[in-house]
């Protein structure tokens, strides 16, 4: 990471700590914002958060590693999650996953070369009445067909 990038990340985290407070209970909110802005929480970011909340960096890492939506490794700018739990599975989530894999030329769990997309499976998205379902970042898409799923992907800038 460049020095200037580091400084700006530090500034960003300082602002978040100001916004949410330096109490331990702010940790998840801070992590979520960093995750949203960068799609991952770098080691440096974790150290800076730890320093400002006055906790050990391992404490931060242990939280990041616990939650499925927090990542310590770089991901694509857009995270695509296809529901794999029972009802979506019965509605053939496999066909959705395959179509997305073919279209992007990567496998589930991977990131495209241009860093535009990461695709992964998710556990129950709570959309069982409208499956098969997937999420692109915070937005959800339901009653998918393989073709529609790909259309939604292509609509992402």
């Amino acid at each position: 990471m460049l020095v200037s990038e580091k400084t700006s990340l530090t500034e960003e985290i300082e602002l978040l700590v100001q916004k949410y407070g330096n109490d331990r209970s702010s940790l998840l909110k801070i992590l979520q914002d960093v995750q949203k802005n960068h799609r991952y929480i770098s080691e440096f970011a974790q150290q800076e958060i730890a320093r400002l909340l006055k906790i050990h960096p391992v404490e931060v890492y242990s939280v990041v590693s616990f939650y499925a939506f927090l990542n310590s490794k770089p991901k694509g700018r857009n995270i695509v999650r296809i529901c794999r739990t029972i009802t979506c599975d019965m509605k053939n989530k496999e066909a959705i996953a395959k179509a997305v894999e073919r279209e992007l030329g990567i496998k589930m769990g991977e990131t495209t070369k241009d860093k535009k997309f990461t695709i992964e499976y998710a556990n129950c998205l709570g959309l069982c009445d409208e499956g098969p379902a997937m999420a692109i970042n915070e937005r959800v898409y339901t009653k998918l067909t393989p073709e529609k799923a790909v259309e939604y992907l292509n609509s992402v800038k």
Partner: protein
Amino acid sequence: MENKKHTRKGDIIFSDYTPGDGIKKAVTLSREDILFEIKDSKLKGRGGAGFPVSTKWMLAAAAISDEKYIVCNADEGEPGTFKDRVLLYEYPELVFDGMVIAGYTIGAKKGIVYLRGEYEHALKPLEDYLQKMRDENLLGKSILGIRNFNFDIEIFVGSSAYVCGEETALIESLEGNRGEARNRPPYPVNTGFKKKPTSVNNVETLCCIPHIVLNGGNWFKKFGTGESTGTKIFSISGDCEKPDVYELPWGTTLKELLEISGAQNTKAVQIGGASGQCVPKAQFNRKLAYEDLPTGGSIIVFNESRNMLKVLKNFMEFFVEESCGQCTPCRIGNRKLLEGVNMIEKGEYTFTYLNKLKELGKTMQVASKCGLGQSSPNSFISILENFNDEIFSYNNGGTHA
């Protein structure tokens, strides 16, 4: 997602309600009166565990503390349930009025909604609704002009972990920690969020409260059975024509549910999600009720074409992934059960070993630290027992090696 509020019909939650009315009535009553009505209603928690709401609230009300919290559990992660999502989108007035009444009753000034990360799409509409309540003086300082009645609600978004629905894990998560279940006692009503008395209640439980306050406990008891009073919102999905949420009185039979949702050629129904049990056709006249088939509301329908071993595999993969890993019976046990399923799939099993796995499942039910590990063997045990023929007999297309 479609908003179908105008088409929904039900005796309690889906009945007519004017936003704010429950709060307006509550403030004319004493805390004791409200607790009495809730006790009289025999309302039990709708999040799965079925604990009496009045007991929890009486303990929280009696606790002496400068700070208390009401937490709305909107972590809804059980496979097959989506009723809380529907309630949050279509009936926020019931959820939030229920929380305000809870605050008034136990003496809490702050409410927190723990919204699962997967439902972040609901954040904006919910926050807009809260703002509307503040503008109408139904939330915030001196609610309805009553001095000293201050209560506000904050929404906390999770980051995806099924176990965070367990109330002590949820509190850990709110405090900025890994969502690992705590030892109990102490219970959250005494030592909860920030070590203060905290009542954690499910979204649907809170939705019942304004109606009980308006109509009384006695009215509520008219619906349901003696032990399971009121109605339940069922999330029905899988092999049926009309997957949706349905409000029906407790005591409704599985057969009736299947008819209502347009299910045909049904072979099995999973009650209570992956952590629940799988009921075969021969038992479809059983009742959904705390005393027969209890459920947090997840109902998944399987027709004749489904392979029950594959269903079980999907559930066990879910648990292996979602176990928080804190205690051994659950961390290792779920892996072993999944391995067992894979062995059956490949035809590389012995019945002696499978019996050992069932024993292991029973050990997990008693030795695991929280409800996740205690309930994850349920489907393993019930599917292997109830679909024994399909899974093991050659004639029925079962595995053979």
